[in-house]
């Protein structure tokens, strides 16, 4: 799942100044699950902005809505009119949703309310943790299901750096050293010998380094 957090309020508030009618548009999928941009958060954000406006004597009408996903165009049908009607859209979707919304509604200002973070898991209520970096060439099989690219601060593929101490990362002692986790897991799986193998230099072009990604499934295209 894509995770995100809300931008600081003053940053959001600065960016929406000057619009008379603002639509706050929530997204009902990933960012709802990570409690950053679902219907509830939209309501909270809308109320906070209204209160700030009241205080600052700003005249601004605020509309609220939440659609299923902002990364698929059909879902925008329900809010088409509202978007047209508004001077600007404050989107609480991830970066994908914000872009897609402004792509679909050319000429409409679409402002992000969130900072998109990572692909992660919901460890417990209110806690999310990164698990995947979307490198395009999965190596999890080799490392006991623990990703050294996403979870090692330095994305090292051939063992830990010298900064691993007591199982913690030198970047931040709150972070578990991914290589310690990999070692422990492989030991548990009785596969430590696999770690002896040298991992060749990774071809990063399958991921971000190869330019913007695109997937085309020929069998699926109409």
């Amino acid at each position, binding site marked *: 799942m894509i995770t995100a957090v809300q931008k600081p309020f003053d940053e959001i508030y600065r960016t929406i100044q000057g619009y008379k009618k603002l639509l706050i548009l929530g997204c*009902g999928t990933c960012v*709802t699950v990570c409690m950053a941009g*679902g*219907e509830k*958060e939209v309501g909270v954000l809308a109320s906070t902005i209204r209160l700030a406006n009241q205080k600052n004597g700003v005249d601004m009408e605020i509309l609220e809505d*939440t659609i299923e996903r902002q990364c698929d165009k059909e879902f925008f049908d329900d809010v088409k009119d509202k978007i047209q009607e508004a001077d600007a859209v404050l989107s609480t979707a991830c970066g994908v949703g914000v872009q897609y919304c402004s792509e679909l509604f050319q000429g409409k200002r679409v402002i992000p309310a969130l900072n998109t973070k990572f692909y992660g898991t919901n460890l*417990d*209520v209110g806690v999310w943790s990164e698990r995947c970096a979307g490198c395009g060439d999965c190596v999890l099989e080799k490392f006991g299901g623990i990703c050294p690219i996403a979870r090692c601060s330095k994305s090292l593929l051939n063992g830990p750096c010298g900064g691993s101490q007591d199982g913690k990362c030198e970047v931040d002692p709150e972070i578990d050293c991914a290589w310690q986790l990999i070692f422990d897991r492989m030991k548990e799986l009785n596969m430590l010998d696999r770690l002896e193998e040298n991992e060749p230099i990774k071809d990063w072009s399958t991921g971000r380094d190869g330019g913007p990604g695109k997937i085309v499934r020929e069998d699926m295209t109409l």
Partner: protein
Amino acid sequence: MNRESIGVIICSCSGRNLGKQEIDSITQRLSFAESGIRNMIIETALCGEDTLKSLRNEVEKKGISSLIIAGCGAARISGVTEKIADALSFAPSSILGVPLFYSEGAESEKNKLGINEARVDKAVRGISRGMNVLTSQEPLEIEEIPVVQRALVIGGGAAGIYTADALNRFGHETVLVEKKDSLSDYGIDEKKLKDLEGVIIHTGSSLVSLEGSKGNFSACVKTPGGLEEYQAGAVVIASGAPVPADPKKYLQNRFGSSSAVPLFSLATAYSGLPRIPSLRRIGILLDLDRDEGRASTQMALHAAQEIQKPNAAEVFLFLRDARVGSLHLEELYDAVRDMGVTIVKYSGEAKISSLETGLQVTVQDDGLGVLTDYTCDLLGISPFGCAAEEDDPLSEITGVHLDDYGQFQDNNIQLMPVETNIPGIFTAGGGRGEVYSPKVKQEALAAAGEVHFLLKNKTLHLERSEAQVDPDKCILCLTCIRCCPHGAMHVNREDGVAECSTAACQRCGICAGECPAKAISLPVWTDEIVLNQL
């Protein structure tokens, strides 16, 4: 709910609450005719028996199906609405009480004949709000849930046995599950055990899964003969104190010496034996990892007495405080002290180090105010003072919360003595906290009482006012399932949405407050209804 079916009662009891003129003023201001409410009944002495009778007739005649009752103070109004709901056989949510506070009491005397605007205002606002609430909600169905006439008791120690015994006497089919190969006889008089005839007993068995909710649990019990499935209306957890699984081994590992033994094996090992020359100094240590209670103190005092009696050895009793808070424990404590047992009250942590033979106990002696070493040939340690190595798996299986000490039941007064966070599951005895032996039986009986109270009704009549999940909005983020303190939310796999159990839901609305998709609402307490009160 349509407006014609709403009746409004303004209680004018004694003319003190609201005078005649005030009631007229309220009627006028509410303009019932316009708002479509034609049913307006004014009664005096609302909750008198006679009034209830005439009220029943009136309600039937006018086809009223929900009521607003304005009267009384807030403290009394819920009692009044309950009483009237009961008398009219109305669902609780279809009667709303609007309390008219008495704070302006002194003024009322002065204005008895006139109109107190503040009071009228309050009544008008209250009643209008009530109408908004009632008109915005649909009448709720009542669900009838059959209660499985069987109880499941986990744990065959004193608490479990007494619970099972009492349930058996009440005539409820009872299943008793014990991990060990036999039931414990500690703290029980022999006669009792025979009375368990009729109870289905599984020894050497454990609960492996528990599904369902209050009135309808289904349990899977692993027995030596294979898996057994049981339906049960209620469950009692009486699994005993969270102590290291094998205290003897635990203590040996922890202190690297075989001279540290569990307290309860100390007295038995020593009783009746002649003086063992090599064991001259025997220590008993309480409050190792945490402060203990009366049960441990009693056990320690008995052990000290047993050992000291034949003057077999010199006994040292180390404790932070003597927990003698019960009749006759003080006397026992005095007796033990008078026998010559050295009682050392310490503060802070006790340090134990292993010697070539025996152990050394180093404590800050609170009486002398100095750090003192004591060597012991044998040291009995109360396992109740040791933190358990891991949480009881029963917590995971049943969903019953543990407290900071790994004991069943949250440390919450509303649950005490025997309730847990899961409706229909109760707990008694050492598993919920150290309990002094005479109190174990009381707790067990109290738990049995609660179970009986649940099972004596063959069906539960529950208003469908549990949390409602909007399937179109639910994205199954699992927040509600993780947040619900009562284990009432679960995944409906067919529809791929969260679902709430009518019987387990306690109507608190925590899930509604958490849901990031605003998919959950509590019928009697939707946001509109709450905001309507403003």
